[in-house]
């Protein structure tokens, strides 16, 4: 069977079908992280640091242990330590030395909210009371929150065993700067010499939280033989298993992890926080232990994405050719190394053909929670700077922003700065679509501005496993190892139905636990419909092959003479009309009597990912007296490869835009002078509410990824990449000046307007 053909008339792919998880979600039956309870379970609460940076002098647990109802109390002494990992470093650094310390502080606390001790008690109330009985003596140290300051010599050092990696001078003193990554090509000096216009700008973006609606929650049980079962809200239970096993020095097979229904993740549920703590407490007590974080804990202690400081320089000729681009950008990683610096370099200028270019990104530790992935990690802040500079270039050269981009657009065969080579991509199609969209030409009212930005993202592939089972009555279960965050069960079902040629209602997609499946990587990196979907196709094709063999046996002909068509086995050769085709249902009924149950499975390492581009057009209206911004119209145009379930694809695109609006306009962490987080709830951490955003229009551009059976490209992340830049650009055009520091909150905008007024006087 061939790979995707755009001309194919699909029965299910691309159709709007009911979501398989819908009923349970609207009735409240779906079980999320904290919906699980087990008889005899204990409740875990975690004591957190009130300081941004302090040495732990001593911890006295005696009073807490003595409280009636307290069954166990732990500190880092109960969590194994691990040595620092050695280079070469993987793109995502999962250093057990750091994870151990992030899970439970060891020598020092490194941020407000850093876990210091944990209690398991017979009720949550007792556990909370016990926390108050733990005496921790701290030696408070100076702290640093800004990545540029933190990278300077003389800044307070967070991790005293961290030396800048790759520094040729072999540093003798520790540094908050862990490493930098540079991507370059061409000759910058020559490139800038060619330019008719050079602009230099600085951009600042603040860390923002993933803001998933469901707080982190898990429950762990340990049996007498040392086997652990863990129920948790996660984007990847296989990864949780791997991290817990490694951290706690356990064998993989002894930890079985079940992913709960998940209430959002956006990259924030890719790693472990309370899981190993709950496991250790269950090991210590022999009882199930449940850990549920409050929203405040989620904000104080779980990863936001990076904040950034960027210094960018770009040059272009009068005709719009970009001749050179250069950027230095400091990403703050939080308390431990691991800012997505490679992704930043990869995405900085990779939508454009630029002969002379350099991008350097620095990975810097600061006294904030360790960053986690967030929807295209590292890319939206890079796009904010790059697209901001490009919009200014186009504006000052008097060139239409889309034409400017078309002039410099990459195409098939070009390479990104980190060496990803583009295959068939839809960038030009996307830009043309924006240009011809009625939104682009729609008139603007007073105090309104229109913004535009483009985003690039290379989604993930990797390891996925699928197990599909044909049941005697002709129904099919399709089990994957990927938690369904954005509708993957629907897409898996659609692809399986398309292959099998049966009604989608006959297929039950499920998410199986780590004991039942081969390894499956995270539901992250926009990879699941692509990679796991591919494995689904493989697995059901195996079923089809077995059914063809069964029909061949029944008919006494060669399997090569049986084809699969519209859900039935059909003899291939002409003149065999007397053989009646056998339907999937008929074959299913015969299977157990003719050799055994029929299943198909697939364990793959999917390559052949396709670059995706999202272009966004947004109108805003600014209240000139208050600085309040109302987004009035928003259009997302994106190359989605092929939309398996268009409703979900559009939902992803809308969600990305909404998160970008929040990022651009209001979301920020607010710290006091001591480095304590002030806004630890949604009241003051201002994510948009429904009434803050307009209807987000979506335009699906389908340039299939030729490597995938159904032409899939990742769609979940590209849609966030350009959003903050697009919104910021709209605000700039509404008020008539550049704005370079997110979020563009009303006080900042009002100040900018006042400055403009003063300048005009």
């Amino acid at each position, binding site marked *: 069977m061939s790979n995707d053909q755009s001309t194919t008339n699909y029965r299910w792919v691309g159709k709007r079908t009911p979501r398989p998880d819908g009923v349970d979600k609207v009735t409240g039956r779906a079980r999320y992280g904290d919906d699980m309870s087990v008889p005899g379970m204990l409740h875990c609460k975690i004591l957190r640091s009130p300081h941004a940076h302090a040495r732990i002098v001593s911890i006295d647990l005696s009073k807490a242990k003595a409280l009636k109802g307290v069954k166990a109390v732990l500190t880092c002494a109960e969590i194994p330590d691990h040595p620092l990992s050695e280079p070469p470093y993987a793109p995502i650094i999962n250093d057990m030395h750091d994870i151990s310390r992030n899970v439970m502080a060891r020598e020092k606390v490194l941020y407000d909210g850093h876990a210091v001790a944990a209690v398991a008690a017979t009720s949550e109330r007792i556990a909370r009371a016990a926390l108050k009985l733990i005496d921790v003596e701290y030696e408070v140290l100076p702290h640093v929150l800004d990545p540029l300051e933190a990278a300077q010599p003389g800044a307070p050092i967070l991790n005293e065993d961290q030396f800048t990696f790759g520094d040729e001078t072999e540093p003798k003193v520790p540094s908050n700067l862990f490493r930098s990554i540079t991507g370059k090509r061409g000759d910058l000096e020559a490139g800038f010499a060619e330019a008719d216009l050079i602009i230099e700008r600085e951009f600042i973006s603040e860390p923002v939280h993933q803001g998933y609606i469901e707080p982190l929650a898990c429950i762990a049980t340990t049996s007498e033989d040392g086997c652990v079962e863990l129920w948790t809200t996660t984007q990847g239970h296989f990864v949780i298993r791997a991290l817990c096993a490694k951290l706690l020095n356990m064998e993989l097979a002894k930890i079985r992890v079940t992913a709960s229904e998940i209430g959002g993740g956006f990259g924030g549920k890719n790693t472990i926080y309370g899981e190993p703590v709950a496991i250790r407490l269950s090991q210590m007590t022999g009882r199930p232990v449940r850990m549920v974080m409050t929203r405040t804990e989620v904000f104080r202690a779980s990863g936001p994405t990076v904040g950034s400081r960027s210094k960018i320089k770009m040059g272009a000729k009068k005709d719009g050719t970009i001749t050179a681009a250069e950027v230095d950008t400091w990403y703050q990683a939080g308390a431990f190394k691991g800012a997505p610096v490679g992704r930043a370099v990869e995405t900085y200028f990779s939508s454009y053909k630029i002969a002379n270019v350099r991008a350097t990104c620095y990975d810097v530790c600061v006294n904030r929670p360790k960053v986690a992935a967030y929807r295209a990690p590292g890319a939206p802040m890079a796009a904010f700077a790059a697209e901001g500079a490009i919009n200014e270039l186009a504006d000052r050269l008097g060139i239409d922003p889309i034409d400017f981009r078309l002039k410099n657009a990459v195409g098939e065969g070009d390479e990104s700065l980190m060496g990803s080579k583009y295959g068939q991509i839809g960038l030009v199609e996307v830009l043309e679509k924006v240009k011809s969209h009625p939104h682009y030409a729609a008139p603007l009212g007073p105090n309104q501005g229109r913004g535009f930005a483009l985003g690039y993202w290379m989604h993930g592939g990797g390891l996925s496993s699928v197990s599909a089972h044909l049941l005697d009555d002709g129904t099919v279960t399709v089990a994957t190892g990927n938690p369904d965050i954005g509708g993957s069960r629907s897409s898996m079902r659609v692809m399986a139905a398309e292959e099998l040629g049966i009604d989608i209602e006959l297929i039950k997609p499920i998410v199986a636990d780590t004991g039942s499946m081969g390894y499956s990587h995270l539901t992250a990196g926009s990879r699941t419909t692509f990679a796991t979907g591919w494995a689904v196709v493989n697995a059901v094709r195996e079923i089809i092959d077995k059914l063809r063999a069964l029909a061949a046996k029944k008919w006494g002909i060669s399997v090569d003479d049986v084809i699969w068509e519209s859900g039935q086995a059909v003899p291939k050769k002409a003149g065999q009309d007397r053989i009646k085709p056998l339907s999937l249902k008929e074959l299913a009924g015969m299977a157990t009597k003719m050799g055994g149950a029929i299943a198909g499975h697939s364990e793959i390492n999917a390559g052949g990912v396709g670059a995706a581009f999202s272009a966004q057009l947004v109108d805003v209206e600014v209240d000139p007296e208050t600085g309040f911004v109302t987004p009035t119209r928003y259009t997302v145009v994106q190359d989605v490869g092929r939309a398996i379930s268009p409703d979900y694809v559009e939902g992803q695109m809308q969600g990305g835009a909404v998160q970008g609006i929040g990022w651009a306009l209001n979301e920020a962490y607010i710290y006091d002078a001591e480095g304590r987080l002030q806004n630890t709830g*949604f*009241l*003051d951490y201002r994510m948009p509410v429904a*009434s803050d955003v307009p209807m987000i229009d979506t335009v699906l551009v389908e340039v299939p990824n030729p490597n995938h059976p159904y032409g899939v490209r990742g769609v979940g992340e590209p849609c966030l990449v350009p959003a903050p830049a697009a919104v910021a650009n709209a605000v700039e055009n509404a008020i008539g000046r550049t704005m370079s520091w997110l979020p563009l909150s009303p*006080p900042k905008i*009002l100040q900018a307007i006042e400055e403009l007024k003063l300048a005009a006087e």
Partner: protein
Amino acid sequence: MAELKYESPQTTEAAVALLAAGGPTARVFAGGTDLMVQMHEEMIEPTLLVDIKRISETRQITFEDDYVRIGAAVTGAELGEHAELKAMWPGVVEAVELIGSYQVQGRATIGGNLCNASPAADSVPALIAAAARVVIAGPGGVRDIPVEDMPVGPGRTSLAAGEFVTSLLLPKRAERAGDAYLRFIPRTEMDIAVVGVGVSVTLNPDGTCATARMALGAVAPTARLVKAASDILVGNKLDHAVLEALAEAASDACSPIDDKRGTIVFRTKVAGVLACRAAAIAWQRAEKN
């Protein structure tokens, strides 16, 4: 760990007795939309909750000779559905209706909003502008005070031990009267006022202002009556010069702080802007009445 007791008395006297006996860790429980959040976040640890919603006086809206009496435990949703009250005091009702969301509206009470004593409470500037009074029951009997005398600082009221609010009194309105409340929040909903402005006016037959009151929220430790507003407005029409003076008076009345919700500069400036906008709406309403 202290135990938490819950009582729901049916009379004012019983509530007063419970509160007086309960001491400083006893709390009135109305909608609970502030109280439960504070308990959840361990900001307070009460030992006794006295639910006042079973006391009929606290749950009614009654039109009496000179004023409208609103029970302290009447919810935002109930006020919003009361057509007669809404027609008479649209600004007060719109202020209460701004509290929270649909779900919160079904629980949040006007008395709770006042007694929680947040400087940013939405109903309070509107109530002050309306010259509303607060009826308080306590061990010493019943007394009433102007709304502006209720909050004395963030989270603190002038209520004495054992006292609670049974109702609020709004004066009845003559012709050509109108009020309005506006707030600034960085989002469109589910946020807390960075600045709130309530304005109430009555007009003379010739369209000039007969009486005026303006109050500000979220720009000082308690909501504030801007006394200068009355001098600026009375006798005048709402022309450019008057609006400018009004904005200046509003900004002058501010003594805000820089915090996670806004800056001093921003709050001071926006107080002036909203004062003018709220006055314009109140005026329009008065002209139509």
